[in-house]
């Protein structure tokens, strides 16, 4: 049996799944300020202790960045001189966040050209001086970036060794080639964010483990990553930034699992918003280009999600329009069905007989037909904007607010699977492990494609995937513009089933 937990801003959801993949029990409890209280309550609610693994998806780390709170000041060390000096680290950060995160920035020699040749030699003496300055400033988190480290990580690895030896084990080091892809500023930004979260990650992962022990569970713990794959506790401690987009990913993967579909639109309706995404081959379609997270440019691959302001807690205005204002987690005090005085979308659903929540007697006078029809039309329009062809597209509804929807105009196949309300927790529980390669290759096409695929497969296996279960789920080739020759940027993603024996070994 496995337990999947989704720690959201409002609710902590959990699902217990047996070895055949059947959902045995689910529970929803309020998220607590310390995060772990909600996890402990959810575990207690499920009541199972004989489990093989616990998977947690959390927005805790991205929230820390958005709030500019609980962050550690970072020493940002970049290798690449004399190149890159025109735009030093943190150059385009919002001032408020930069003030919190900037400990010191250093430009050093090292780094590589696009083909792996060195730009300049790494200078150990220079790095030892940097280490002395970091120590003098009392900084305990370091982010190291190096030009073209996704092509050749040599400079970064060497510099990390020197700095680790100088600074000792109490100082955290984040290395950019392990975190991001080609695009120096965006990758470096993500690395700096990761370093800033390092102390919080240690505390949080420790607290999750404590919650498990209190619940009497002795099983390995995993955290969900942006792409819907898992990382173990040791990895999560080192790479908290890789959890940033796990929320929508988990809910979409859970929807795929519960509905048995791998290609469909997923509509996740929560208390305040409706998120629409597209699943292709069982994985979320990813957004193009660079993503701004708390106004910081990063190049994470995050799911392409369209959000509209309609949810179960949406306030219905006098003209019958739902949202964007919502009563949020106060639904159980303010909605009519709970004896409150605010007409919410949930009241409409209860009045229409689509859900049995609270006291239907309070909404017997509510005219629901027009407003519900309008909600369905707006959600259908959002799905239509996300679809990529006119071919029939099944739509899977999940999330507590999905009771608002009965039919969607223009879509004939609309389903709401069992356990729809905890699809995100199910998505966490069923996650696999993956490996990815994204860099510039040169050489004959077939040979470099195979090289990239082998590398991605090897990474998935090292991350804990069962040998033989790994398959390639995505291949992207982009020949570089304005560059004669055969240099091509290749991105390959491989995923496989979690091999618990490998993890425990």
């Amino acid at each position, binding site marked *: 049996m496995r337990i999947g937990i989704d720690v959201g801003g409002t609710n902590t959801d959990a699902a217990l799944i047996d070895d055949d993949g059947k959902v045995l029990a689910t529970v929803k409890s309020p998220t607590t300020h310390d995060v772990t209280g909600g996890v402990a309550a959810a575990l207690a609610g499920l009541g199972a202790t004989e489990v093989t693994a616990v998977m947690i998806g959390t927005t805790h780390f991205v929230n820390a960045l958005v709030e500019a709170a609980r962050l550690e000041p970072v020493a940002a060390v970049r290798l*690449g*001189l*004399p*190149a*890159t*000096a*025109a*735009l030093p680290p943190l*150059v*385009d950060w919002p001032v408020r966040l930069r003030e919190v995160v900037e400990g010191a920035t250093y430009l050093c020699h090292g*780094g590589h*050209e*696009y083909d792996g*040749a060195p*730009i*300049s030699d790494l200078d150990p003496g220079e790095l030892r001086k940097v280490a002395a300055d970091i120590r003098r400033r009392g900084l305990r988190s370091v982010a190291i970036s190096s*030009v*073209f480290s996704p092509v050749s990580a040599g400079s970064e690895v060497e510099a990390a060794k020197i700095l680790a030896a100088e600074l000792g084990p109490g100082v955290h080091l984040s290395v950019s080639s392990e975190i991001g892809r*080609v*695009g*120096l*500023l965006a990758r470096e930004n993500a690395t700096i964010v990761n370093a800033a979260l390092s102390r919080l990650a240690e505390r949080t992962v420790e607290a999750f483990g404590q919650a498990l022990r209190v619940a009497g569970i002795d099983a390995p713990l995993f955290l969900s990553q942006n792409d819907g794959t898992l990382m173990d506790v040791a990895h999560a401690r080192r790479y908290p930034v890789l959890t940033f987009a796990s929320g929508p990913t988990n809910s979409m993967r859970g929807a795929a699992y519960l509905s048995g579909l791998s290609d469909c639109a997923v509509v996740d309706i929560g208390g305040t918003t409706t998120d629409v995404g*597209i699943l292709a081959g069982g994985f979320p*379609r990813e957004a*193009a*280009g660079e993503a701004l997270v708390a106004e910081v440019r990063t190049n994470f691959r995050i799911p392409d999600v369209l959000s509209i302001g309609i949810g179960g807690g949406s306030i219905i205005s006098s003209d019958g329009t739902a949202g964007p204002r919502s009563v949020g987690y106060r639904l159980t005090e303010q909605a009519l069905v709970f004896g409150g005085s605010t007409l919410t979308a949930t009241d409409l659903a209860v009045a229409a007989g689509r859900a049995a929540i609270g006291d239907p007697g309070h909404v017997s006078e509510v005219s629901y037909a027009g407003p519900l029809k309008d909600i369905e039309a707006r959600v259908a329009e959002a799905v239509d*904007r996300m679809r*990529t*062809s*006119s071919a029939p597209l099944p739509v899977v509804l999940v999330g507590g607010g999905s009771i608002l929807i009965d039919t969607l105009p223009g879509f004939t196949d609309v389903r709401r699977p069992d356990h729809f309300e905890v699809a995100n927790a199910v998505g966490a529980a069923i996650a696999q492990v993956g490996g990815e390669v994204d860099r*510039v290759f040169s050489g004959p096409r077939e040979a470099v494609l195979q090289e990239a695929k082998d590398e991605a497969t090897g990474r998935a296996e090292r991350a804990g995937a069962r040998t033989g279960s790994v398959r390639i789920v995505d291949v992207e*080739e*982009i*020949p*570089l*513009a*304005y*560059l*004669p*020759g*055969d*240099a*091509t*940027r290749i991105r390959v993603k491989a995923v496989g089933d979690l091999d618990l024996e490998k993890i425990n070994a």
Partner: protein
Amino acid sequence: MREITEDLLDDMARGAGILGTGGGGDPYVGKLLAREAIRRHGPVPLYSIDEVPADATVVPISTMGAPTVMLEKLPAGTEELAVLRALEAVIGRPATHIVPIEIGGMNSLIPIAAAAQAGLPLVDGDAMGRAFPEAQMVLPTLMGVRNTPMALADDKGNTLVVDAVSNHWAEKIARAACVRMGCQLSSADTVLRGSQLRDGLVPATLTLAEDLGRAVRLARAAHSSPVGAALAVLDGTELFAGKVVDVERRTTGGFARGTARLESSHGALELSFQNEHLLASRGGRTVATTPDLICVLDTESGEPVTTEALRYGLRVTVIGAPCDPRWRTPEGLELAGPRYFGYDCDYEPLAGRPS
């Protein structure tokens, strides 16, 4: 004369991205370079072509190489002054003005950084009126102006001055050096006298980029159509609006080439691109070709879609905008028409601005 200040750069970058017709490189790095240079050295004076004295020495400064490389290997910040000084040493007189070589993509913003660093004013115009991939594809070539001596510099401090028998040869030599020097160079070439600007430049294109970027931003803020706003500023034609349903890329002849198919309930459009979008056709019939501008915009946001970012499922609007009339001459078409890029079709002028 007016001044380019930091607050204008976002609009200029957005407009330059659209004028890049799918290429020219992401203006983001160029914008940051210009912003940092203005913060350090102050605003840059911008003169219209009419305001430049006849004996002025106007130097186009640009970068050459793969935009993907520039996103990773940021410049040292010394390259622009290095090429300027190397060129001045060869021509034997100091530059008085800087000008962009092209208005599309990052090369429209790099000269702002160069002018700020050099303490020189900038000329409002450029030598293409759009973006093109090769150094000889500039209006001065049509006037018989040589792009050599051409000064090149890399981020490591290497400089090189090319003297060549033709503008095409200078391009070939520079491109080969570029690959060996790390795929990212700064270039100062195609020096113009003030008296040559009227024939050698498309006027007021930095202002056009700014107007375009502003119009798109304001339309978005007002929840009106950003694509419509871009069309109005460009005096363009909407060629097609639909979804990308297929993208095919291959590397031939040393350059990335590709085609994309767009579909909607009103039919389909075929888009051919190399570094830029070069050809649009419907049912085998050409509807727009280089040297006219073919801009692909995200239908929702009005953001430009580069050839590298084209992918299945994007909802885009393709707009055509007329090129500078000098490109429509036989000499202009020989330099930058569809046949130069290997397409077996003749140029079909777009409707729009009278040529």
